[in-house]
């Protein structure tokens, strides 16, 4: 099973950001995508998940051969794609537990019926939810694993959470929804070293033969804790270099400037 991005071209407000990006991630692999600010890293994350603000001009995103571009955001989640947001939004009045029960139910229901025909419109009436007791046990267990205070279950989603708490809760959602491919968008930003370690441990525990991970990051810091199999450098909307874990260390030592010089477009 793999996530295959082919010649992806994406624009935002008619401004081209990604200019023909190619990337192939197999389940069980950890890929790191690095690049300077403005190179298009977050654009890739949002485009993969299907945000309407990001317009796909050309290319394909195939998950196990199925073109995700034809699918709505929730359907992509049902197929097994997950995005850990750089800036998770706040949903006032909705508790983390209630939200997660609904989303876990929706995702599992869709996957259970996936073998059959097109999944119908999903609704989250009480009867369609994961049983409360079973869900609570699972949630509290995962909260414990990830060092998330159990009191958070009853708090409103991301409301008043610190930067570190938001990121932990993103990883908690990742653990609950059990996707096939996870994109971590700057999950390290705003984290102190302890939070970084817990988040990384959480991801490492999930990453295995079942999960493919795309770690998007500006700094090499996170990659001290999450060891990538592959590192890709994004520059001006294209992957210009790919290599092993040592690539990240090289970048850390010499920065992005040499890449800019190497790949600078000739001035017209």
């Amino acid at each position: 099973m793999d996530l295959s991005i082919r010649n992806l071209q994406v624009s935002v407000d008619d401004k081209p950001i990604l200019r023909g990006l190619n990337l192939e991630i197999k389940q069980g692999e950890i890929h790191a995508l690095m690049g300077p600010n403005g190179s298009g890293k977050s654009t890739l994350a949002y485009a993969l998940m299907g945000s309407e603000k990001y317009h796909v001009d050309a290319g394909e995103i195939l998950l196990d051969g199925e073109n995700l571009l034809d699918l709505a955001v929730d359907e992509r989640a049902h197929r097994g794609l997950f995005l850990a947001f750089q800036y998770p939004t706040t949903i006032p009045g909705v508790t983390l537990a209630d939200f997660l029960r609904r989303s876990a139910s929706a995702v599992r229901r869709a996957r259970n019926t996936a073998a059959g025909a097109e999944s119908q419109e999903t609704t989250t009436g009480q009867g369609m939810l994961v049983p409360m007791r079973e869900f609570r046990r699972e949630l509290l267990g995962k909260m414990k694993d990830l060092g998330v205070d159990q009191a958070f279950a009853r708090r409103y989603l991301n409301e008043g959470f610190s930067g570190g708490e938001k990121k932990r809760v993103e990883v908690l959602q990742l653990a609950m929804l059990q996707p096939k491919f996870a994109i971590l968008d700057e999950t390290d930003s705003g984290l102190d070293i302890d939070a970084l370690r817990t988040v990384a441990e959480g991801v490492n525990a999930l990453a295995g033969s079942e999960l493919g991970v795309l770690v998007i990051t500006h700094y090499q810091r996170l990659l001290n804790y999450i060891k990538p199999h592959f590192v890709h450098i994004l520059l001006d909307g294209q992957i210009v270099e790919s290599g092993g874990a040592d690539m990240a260390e090289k970048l850390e030592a010499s920065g992005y400037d040499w890449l800019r010089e190497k790949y600078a477009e000739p001035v017209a």
Partner: protein
Amino acid sequence: MAVVTNTSELSAEAVEALSALKNEPAWLRDKRRAAWQLSRELPMPTGTDEAWRRTDLRGLDLGQYAAVSPQVEAISVREELPAYMAPHLAMPETTVGGLLVHQDGNALWQTFEADLAGQGVIFCDLDTAVRQHADLVAAHFMTEAVPVNTNAFTALHGALWQGGVFLYVPSGVQVQVPLQALTTHATASGMVQPHLLLIAEAQSDVTFVDEQVSQSSDLAGFHNGVVELYLKRGARVTCLQIQNWSRRLWGISHQRAVLDADSQLHWAAAGLGSRLHWTAQDVWLRAPGGNSKLFGLTFADGRQHLDYQTRQDHTAPHTESDLLFKGVVLDRARTVFRGVLHLRKEAQQTNAYQATHSLLLSPRARADALPILEIEADDVRCKHGSTTGRVDEEQIFYLMSRGLSRRDAQRLIVQGFFETVITEFPVEGVQEKIRLAIEDRI
């Protein structure tokens, strides 16, 4: 036959007939007569009056509603209550100390804990109170809180009110369990004019729940209700209301609480029903230490029109009032919130706050929010804020990325939007009622 005709038409004869039917004492009959006279003299509110500018009453023809509902005997066992009432009577997870059910202005059924009665608490229909507690009723009924001469509607109510709840809590008595009223409208083209008179004596404490519904959601009718809450020194009152009349009912409500020294009011109202409803919801803080918290929740869809006119009237120093209204508007519905903060010259060292938030879920939905500050005192704190917006696409995207459909995401956001005000209805059973009513309609 003549009597029947007369009582169904708006007329002096209807007033006489109603008073006679109820065998009312002279003072009340005279009060009805005077009110009737006033109702003929006072002009109907029109758009030139600021409080009525956004509600068009031209389609309201009072002549098409029966002025007096036929008398119905109370039933003898609870099982005889009409089936449509069952879901409204249910209060999950909640034990009540008494229940009073009215249909079309007739008291149908009542329960009341004997130990509360033993402590001197009075919870009965207003006709009974008129007979048994005339002094209390005469001193408070449409005198200070909602005077008969407020406008043509209150005058009409004074003349032809029918059915009502009387709740009296003696000094120092703490009622630990909520008292519940269900007021219904079951006759097509009926005029429903219920009254609520709540008197909490010094240092008493009570929670009252009132739900207003129609037998079916398409029953035409006209509601003209009055609510009067009196909080004496140090009293604490929690009043929770659900307005869920038929979608073919036009309604007018005048509601006012009078707060004496050191009293505390927690007043939360949910506006869900009616084709058109105009509600005045006022608090009058007339002595130091009074504290009022008002909460409102409105859900309007189809072509509903819900208009709330609130007034936080401070006429004494060291008083505090707060208000939070949240509304969701769909389809071609419209909500109006016009909230006056009035801090009189005497109201020094007073805090008054107001916040309103509206969520528009359809392109043609409309919500007007008009905060009005009338500040005559110079040593006060006042704050108001209002937001009107649509569901945040970022929130939708976030929830959809977790596998929820767009509809479910929107539903969850709306529920969350309301949740922070639903928690201000501090009776579990009432919260559940509101959640269910909203969930059904999103």
